[in-house]
């Protein structure tokens, strides 16, 4: 290697990151990344009909459904859900329906902050 190239670069402490930017997965939500704030409709679950088949968990592209081990019920994540309807389409028990955001207190109706 030619000495005209740096042998080693100085990277400031706060910008150090693992090779390939592979990092431990965050557990839970990140306050800086609220990506569901432009949703128009949200899925609402009927726990009477839900069979916890986990189809919603499997098909959700954003990981917005999970099974709460204590209550054994499906739990929805309001921060990341973009209202794409995939879970509603894929639910075999017809336990999910869409409802307009404006019907909910604190429902997202406009973009507040990007993140």
């Amino acid at each position: 290697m030619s000495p005209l190239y740096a042998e080693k670069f100085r990277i400031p402490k706060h910008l150090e990151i693992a090779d390939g930017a592979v990092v431990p997965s965050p557990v839970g939500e990140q306050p800086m990344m609220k990506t569901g704030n432009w949703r128009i409709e949200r899925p609402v679950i009927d726990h009477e009909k839900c069979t916890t088949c986990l189809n919603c968990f499997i098909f959700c592209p954003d990981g917005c459904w999970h099974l709460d081990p204590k209550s054994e019920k499906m739990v929805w994540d309001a921060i990341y859900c973009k209202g794409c309807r995939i879970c509603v389409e894929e639910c075999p028990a017809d336990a999910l329906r869409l409802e307009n955001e404006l019907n909910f207190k604190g429902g997202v109706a406009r973009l507040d902050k990007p993140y």
Partner: protein
Amino acid sequence: MPKEAYMAGCAATANGAKLARVEVITSYPIRPYTGIMMELSRMVAAGELDAEFVHGEGEHGQVSVTQGASAAGARAYTGSSGVGVAYGMEVYSPISGGRYPCQMAIADRAYDPPGDFGSEHTDVMSVNNQGWILGWAETPEESMDNCIIYYKIGEDPKVMLPQWQVQDGYFVSHIPNKVSIPDQAQVDEYLPPYNCPHALNPQNPTNHGPQIFPDQGPAIDLQRAQAFLNTPKVVEQAIADYNKAIGRNYSAWLEEYKTDGAEFVFFLMGAHCRTARFAVDHLRKKGAKVGMVKLRFVRPWPTAQVCEVLSKFKAVGVIESQTCYGGAMKGGELQHEVRASLYDSPKQPAVCSFMAGLGGEVISLEEFYNMAKILEKNAKQGKVDQYVYWVGFDNGI
């Protein structure tokens, strides 16, 4: 014992992948590279190779599956040609940025329009700055060997980069040639199983390709730049080890053919080197002081070696086989790299380009002789009359 066989580039490359014990193969058909996947699927079906064989729904999906397989810790393998290489483009940077050392075999092919399927270097050369190791093979045997050597280079912990292992479509991929297939045991010793430092693991979940803030971007770009600065030493070691283990005679960066006493040389890569060798032999017999320099790697580009070797001559003819419309020299891309490499040299040869081998056209011996005439004149007068010659359409050729 190594086995002698007579096979075309596609079959030889598939044998290279088999010897490298690839674990996940993803395919999508496009000629001429399809032959590699046909042979590999036969091997998997016949139980000769233990690998997952996945069909992509297109090249974008195909290369994405390869990325996922590599992230899961597998030695992943894919390939494409021409417009297929272009369709996979979006995934190339995430793969090198995420440092997944998977391999993509390419039998090169012209871009459209108008739907040409012949060999041309334009497909890979138009995506060559995405952080992948890249080089051309001249023969089926070299293509097979490169497959194994590239995994060795890419999977080195100091490198961790994906590789494009390229052969000329048809000229190499479809013309049978003698191939000496090394022993599996020899290759196993040379290339141990891939040890992925960050394989996906449900017990220890990780984010691959996370969303970052703008100030974190340059630091990650720098990682790839650093990896490329680390690569040359690893390349030299990997090729020296392969030569020793398998009994080959590859030079790491540039192969010089009959350059002793040469005043002017052809500078090129890939299949057309074969014809160039015959042309040089013939011209030497007639007293011309001509030689050939073959390029083995485009990325990393061997700047110092190109400068040192080409400075010895009075004139250099870069044979492009790929287009770069409106670039600095208005010809192909190789002349840019060659001129940049020579910029700091106290001895400057006269450098011109020949646009030849485009759209699948053979570069004939006659055309090499005509190019030699121009180079001889350039060597004598110490300068070029024209930067770029379109072979078959231009002054004197």
